[in-house]
Structure formats: structure tokens, C-alpha cells
């Protein structure tokens, strides 16, 4: 079964490429069919006994194996579900684009690679699938050429560093213990010394940190996300980046185990606390950098970095509630961030810009798009009754009750950054007077709306009934050795404060209906057009009458000096240094034969001299 999933995924990618040369319509539906089949197969594996199956015995004298656990099932089913929706979304989006076949091939390859990552049973096959996903990601990021090429290049450089770190760690583990199977490694690492464990952890942390965009390694992400095609941005942000999270959980909790991971150092100087602090920085700074962006997709990209901070904070903090919150936030993030990237992608397609200073007034033209974007932004902020609220609530609760108010402060302040940029996104795209040039924006097709509507329904549904997902997550955290949470359909009950989403829903519904009735029963209104608005009696300027540019100018004046990306500067310095070094080296090769002859003669002379010097007789 596990092999079948991968065979279908990779085979489907190849077949759809060749089908596309014949007819594009069948290729679309074929790709969709492949991933619906994979989703079906993965769902069928629900709560199966953990099992291992070898799929390539004797690869370089080593057996490659697949393995399914509750953890990998959860990630795999998310990958499959989001992939299906993204494929539906790409039907319309990629139409009229060149190289559609390549796009589908690469998209399916990335998704297949991610399935392989989640299902792999040993570190070598993990590495292989990781590389498949990484390299096809590079091709997809730079799919649009132009500005996308340097973005892709930047990604590939950092990704190669990460992969190298992972390879070193994998080889080191293999040479120490002679095995790479996940189940065997966990018994071996339990007896290893603390220094060696930290060495392994650091290498893996670099690798997964690059993928997950934790603060010192985040610089590749914003350009990559904003330049990639929108369906792939959704995959990149919702799933691929979070493969880093999967790797972290894998290495910290499944291979090393909770005891080793939490036992490295004490107090503030323990390993997991330092990672948590890094995650705290990852929440705050990128969330406020996102406020200052003028590019809609870049805002979302920085927001991805910030939200990844929440997830890593949950994973590294080391309580059961925090880990559950981290995994839950991963699932939620996959929902709302894919939704937001899809909707901004649609806006970009309709208006052929994603500059927040240019757009405006689209709520009059595309109301459905507005509603789904609003739901996605609400999930991103974490308004109660959307899914983002519950995962954040769990995270804050454990941070406060475990005595870490400063990390909780970082997380809560990051939420305010989220409020600011989410509102700006909604406002600048959808509100204000409709500019003249967008008067004829039409509604999009059904296949574009469908995945967004499904995702927004899921956001609200899992916000009201978080118990559905928390039940699955509870299985995962219990299998990793944490005490099970008391999960109800409406949330979590414990003695130190519960939250009951049904209470909130009931209260909001009843009060909302009452207020609505009050509103309804008072004097009726007259509908007026957008031009009829208060301007102290002056006629409303036609065409463009909105306040979008420099939306947070007073704040920007205060915070911009502090939000300079010094890490980016540092990397830039490093790049400049390497450039100078290579330039110096390059000067040796002058391209003039006489110089080379001089080099050879000088070398010969040196050799001769050395030979003469070494022969005293």
C-alpha cells in the first residue's frame, strides 16, 4: 500500500507530462484523479498499526524502507488533501501559460516527493525524497523567469547548504551505528553522549531550519514565495516549508525521544529553550516586516515565516500541549495560507498586479472572493471560531502555565503584527472606491472558487469543532510519549482553564441574531453608490478615491529603523566576500598564453628548487 501511493504519485507525474503533449484537458483531470486516488489511499491507512515495508532492498548494500505511523499519516493526509485542492485551483490559473506540462509535472513531483518524505522509513530514503522535492521546488520557483530566477537561485543555495548538513548528519549516524532505519536509530541514540547528540541535532536543525525558514535561515523564503506561481506558492507555504517541521518532530521526538531532547542542558541554556527563543524571534520580527510590505504576496510570504515561528515554538517547547498546538497550527496554516495565496493569486490574475498601493474596491466586483479571503485572514489572525484561534490559544496557555511569559509575550505581540497586515491586505485589495480600470473585472470560474470555498468552510468548521483534528493529534502526541490531553469535540477540558467553542458559537449566534433584529426592525435604509460619500460637499474625485498607499505610515516611521533585515545584510556581506575572493582567484586566469607559460615555468623552477634543496648530496 505504501509503495503503491508513491508509485501512483511519481508515475502520475510522468504520465501526466506525456498526456499533456497530447491533450491538456485530459491531463488536468488525470492529475486530479491521481491525487484523489492518493488521498483515498492515504485516508484508508487511518489509524493503521505502525508498519514498515522495504521497497528497495540492497540499494548500495542498504535497504530503503517506507513506514507509516500516526505522525506520518497526519502529515501525509494533509499533503494529499491540499494537493488535490491546489490541482483543482491550477486548472484555471495556469491556462494560457507556456510550459503547462512542465508545471503539472513539477507540481506532481513536488507533491510526490512530500508524500515520500512523510512516508519514508529511514533517513536515506528521507534524504532522497527530500532532494526530489527540493530540486523540483527550485524549478517551480523560477518558473516565471525574470525576477523569479534570482529568487530560485537564492533558494537553491540555502537549500543545498541544508541538504549538505543533513547528509553529513546522516552519514555520521550511519558510520556510528551502521543503520539508518528510524526505528533502530532511536534505540541507539538513547545511549549516545550529549555532545554527539547536540552535534547531530545542530546539523539537522540547520537543514530543517532552512526549509522551515527559522530566523537565521529565512532569507530565501520571501522572494521565493512571492515570485512562484500562485498555486505553487500555496503548496510551498502550506506544505513544503512545513516538511521542515515534520523533520524536526521526527528527529527530536521520534528518533531521539522526548527525554534526550528535553534533557540537553538546563534552564535558559537548554537546547530546546534556545530553539524556542529563536522561534520567538521568528514570530515577532517577520510579522512586523510583513506590515511594511507593499507586495501582497510578499506580505503573505513574511507572514509564512512568522507563522512558522508559532509552529516551531510549539514543537520545540517540549510540553504535550505545545507539541499538539504546533501540529494543530501546522494543519491550520496549511488551510488558511493556501487559501490566502490562492485568493491573492486570483486577484493578481484578474488585475495583473499585486501591488497593494494599486489595488482597491474589488469587493463590489468579486464578493465571493472577498468572503473567502476574509475567512482566511480571520483564521490567520485567530479570531475565535476560526481554527487559528484554537491552536494559538493552546500554545499561549502552555507557555504561560509553564512559566515562560516572555515567549508568550513574543507570540502575542506577533499576533498584533498579524492583525495589522491582515487588515491591510483585506482593505487595500477589496475596500475603498473601485478604481476606473477595475470596473470590468469579472467573476472567476467555478474551479477557481471551489478549493477556496472548501478551505474556508474547513477553517470555520475546525474552528468550531477543533476536537476532530485534536483527536488525531492526540494520538500522535501520545505515541511520542506525552500524556494524552482530554479532548472534547468543542475543545480541551482541563482544570487550569478550558475553552468551549460551542459556548462562543451559541453566544455569538444568539447575540448576533438579536442585534440583527434590532438593526432590521429600525428605520429602513436607502442604498447609495460609492460616489455618494462625505467629502465636505465637494464632488467625489472619479476613478481613484482611496487611501491605500503608506497605510501604516506613522507606524512605519517609528519601526522601520529597527526592522532592517541584518541577517540579510550579513548574508549579502558574505556573498560579497566570496565574490571578491573568487574574483581574486579568477585573476590568475588571464586568458593570455604567455601568463600560463610563465606560471608553468615558475612552478617548474619552484619544483626544481625544492628538489635541489631537498637533495643535499
Amino acid at each position, binding site marked *: 500500500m505504501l509503495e503503491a501511493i508513491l508509485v501512483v504519485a511519481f508515475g502520475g507525474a510522468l504520465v501526466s507530462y506525456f498526456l499533456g503533449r497530447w491533450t491538456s484537458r485530459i491531463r488536468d483531470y488525470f492529475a486530479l484523479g491521481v491525487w484523489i486516488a492518493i488521498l483515498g489511499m492515504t485516508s484508508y491507512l487511518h489509524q493503521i498499526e505502525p508498519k514498515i515495508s522495504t521497497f528497495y532492498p540492497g540499494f548500495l548494500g542498504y535497504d530503503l524502507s517506507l513506514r507509516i505511523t500516526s505522525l506520518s499519516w497526519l502529515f501525509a493526509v494533509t499533503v494529499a488533501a491540499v494537493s488535490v485542492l491546489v490541482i483543482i485551483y491550477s486548472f484555471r490559473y495556469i491556462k494560457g501559460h507556456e510550459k503547462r506540462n512542465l508545471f503539472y509535472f513539477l507540481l506532481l513531483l513536488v507533491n510526490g516527493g512530500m508524500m515520500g518524505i512523510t512516508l519514508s522509513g529511514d533517513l536515506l530514503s528521507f534524504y532522497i525524497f527530500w532532494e526530489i522535492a527540493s530540486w523540483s521546488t527550485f524549478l517551480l520557483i523560477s518558473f516565471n523567469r525574470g525576477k523569479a530566477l534570482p529568487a530560485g537561485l537564492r533558494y537553491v543555495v540555502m537549500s543545498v547548504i541544508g541538504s549538505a548538513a543533513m547528509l553529513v548528519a546522516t552519514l555520521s549516524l550511519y558510520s556510528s551505528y551502521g543503520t539508518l532505519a528510524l526505528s533502530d536509530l532511536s534505540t541507539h541514540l538513547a545511549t549516545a553522549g550529549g555532545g554527539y547528540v547536540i552535534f547531530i541535532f545542530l546539523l539537522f536543525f540547520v537543514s530543517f531550519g532552512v526549509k522551515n525558514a527559522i530566523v537565521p535561515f529565512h532569507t530565501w523564503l520571501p522572494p521565493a514565495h512571492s515570485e512562484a506561481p500562485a498555486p505553487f506558492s500555496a503548496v510551498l507555504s502550506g506544505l513544503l516549508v512545513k516538511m521542515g517541521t515534520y523533520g524536526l518532530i521526527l528527529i527530536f521526538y521520534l528518533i531521539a525521544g522526548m527525554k534526550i531532547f528535553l534533557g540537553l542542558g538546563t534552564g535558559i541554556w537548554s537546547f530546546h529553550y534556545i530553539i524556542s527563543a529563536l522561534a520567538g524571534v521568528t514570530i515577532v520580527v517577520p510579522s512586523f516586516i510583513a506590515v511594511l510590505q507593499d507586495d501582497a504576496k510578499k506580505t503573505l510570504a513574511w507572514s509564512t515565516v512568522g507563522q512558522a515561528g508559532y509552529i516551531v515554538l510549539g514543537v520545540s517547547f517540549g510540553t504535550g500541549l505545545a507539541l499538539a498546538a504546533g501540529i494543530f497550527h501546522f494543519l491550520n496554516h496549511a488551510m488558511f495560507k493556501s487559501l490566502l495565496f490562492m485568493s491573492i493569486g486570483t486577484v493578481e490574475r484578474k488585475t495583473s498586479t499585486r501591488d497593494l498601493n494599486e489595488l482597491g474596491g474589488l469587493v463590489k466586483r468579486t464578493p465571493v472572493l472577498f468572503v473567502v479571503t476574509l475567512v482566511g485572514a480571520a483564521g490567520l489572525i485567530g479570531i475565535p471560531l476560526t481554527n487559528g484561534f484554537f491552536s494559538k490559544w493552546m500554545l499561549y496557555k502552555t507557555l504561560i502555565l509553564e512559566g515562560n511569559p516572555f515567549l508568550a509575550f513574543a507570540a502575542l505581540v506577533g499576533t498584533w503584527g498579524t492583525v495589522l497586515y491582515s487588515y491591510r491586505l483585506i482593505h487595500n485589495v477589496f475596500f475603498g472606491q473601485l478604481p476606473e480600470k477595475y470596473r470590468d473585472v469579472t467573476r472567476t470560474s467555478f474551479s477557481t472558487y471551489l478549493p477556496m470555498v472548501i478551505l474556508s468552510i474547513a477553517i470555520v468548521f475546525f474552528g468550531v469543532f477543533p476536537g476532530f483534528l485534536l483527536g488525531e493529534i492526540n494520538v500522535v502526541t501520545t505515541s511520542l510519549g506525552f500524556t494524552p490531553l482530554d479532548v472534547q469535540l468543542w475543545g480541551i477540558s482541563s482544570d487550569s482553564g478550558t475553552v468551549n467553542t460551542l459556548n462562543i458559537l451559541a453566544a455569538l449566534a444568539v447575540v448576533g441574531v438579536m442585534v440583527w433584529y434590532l438593526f432590521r426592525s429600525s*428605520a429602513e435604509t436607502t442604498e447609495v453608490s460609492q*460616489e*455618494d460619500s*462625505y467629502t*465636505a*460637499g*465637494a*464632488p467625489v474625485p472619479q476613478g481613484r478615491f482611496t487611501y491605500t498607499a503608506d497605510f501604516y505610515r506613522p507606524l512605519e516611521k517609528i519601526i522601520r529603523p529597527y526592522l532592517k533585515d541584518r541577517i540579510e545584510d550579513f548574508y549579502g556581506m558574505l556573498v560579497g566576500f566570496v565574490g571578491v575572493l573568487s574574483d581574486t582567484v579568477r585573476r590568475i586566469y588571464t586568458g593570455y598564453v604567455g601568463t600560463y607559460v610563465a606560471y608553468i615555468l615558475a612552478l617548474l623552477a619552484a619544483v626544481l628548487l625544492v628538489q635541489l634543496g631537498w637533495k643535499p648530496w
Partner: protein
Amino acid sequence: MDRRQLIKWLKEPLKMSNKYSLHVVYFCTGCGIIEIPPSITARWDAERFGVKPVATPRQANLFLITGYVSLKTLKPIIRTYEQMPAPKYTVAFGSCPIDGGMYWDSYNTINHLDKYIPIDGYIAGCMPRPEAVFAGITHLWTLIDEGKADGYKKYRRNYSQYRSNQERLYGELGWPPRFETEGLENE
């Protein structure tokens, strides 16, 4: 509040609340505006009657036009008046809006403001002092009580006439008619 007033409140809450909560949008067209600051600040304190200046016509129900109305300012006045929500009252202030005042023969000044928007009451004088403003407001109360301050209904009823008067001045006004002009005249 004595019993008679209480009964009045229960009988006609709309009239009573309209009377005692006049939110004013001042349109400072001329010199009359100089009398407004004393009347709303500590010396005369209009707020004790529930009269309160607000920022936009959407929030207001009393439109106070202070001073002469030039051709250029009439257009914003019409627009502001039309933007106010329905039970609304207009009070013109000083001699000029009544018949042009000292600018009666100016090429650029409106002589009769009530040709263009309905006026519920005038406060005469050049300029009326704050006491006169309060006298005007108390008189407006009696008008509201008796149901005579119905300028907004008049405007709705005779919109085509007002509109044609306005268009005679400007040609094209720059916004579509607020109400359907046809059909209403026949009623």
C-alpha cells in the same frame, strides 16, 4: 422631567427625540459663523439643549447655514443637505440667505436660498447674537412639535422643481437625481 413631558415622550418618541437631540452640521458660508463658537462654548453652552456639532452630514439632523451663499458654495450646500438622513431640518442664519442681504445685487450671491433647498426657519439679523440662535432653536422645537418643520418632505415632494432650479444655475449638477422626478408630481 415632569409628567406631561413623560407622556409626550411615550406618545411621540420620534418628535421628542428629534427636538432634544439636534446634531448640527455648520456650514460656514459667511461671517455668521463667528457667532457659533460662543454659542457652543462655555458662555452660552448649546449642549445643554442637546445641540451638538458633529463632523459629517451623515450624523446630523440640523443644517445651519451661516451667512450669505455664493454661487460656488451653493453646490456643496445642496450636496450636504442631500446627504443628511431623513428627518432633517434647515435653519438659515442672518439676513443674507433670506433675501441676499447687503449682497442683494451681487452677481455671485444667491438671493433666495429656499428656491434651492427647503428652509424650515430663518434667524434674522446681521448678525444674530447667540441669544437669537437659541430663540431660533426653541422656535424650531415648536415647529417640530406642530409638525410644521417638514422641509425634507417638501423637498421630496417637489424635487423636480428644486432640481430644475438648481440646474438652471449650474447646467449639469454632477450627480444623478436623488429621487425619481417623474410620477411624483401627479400625486
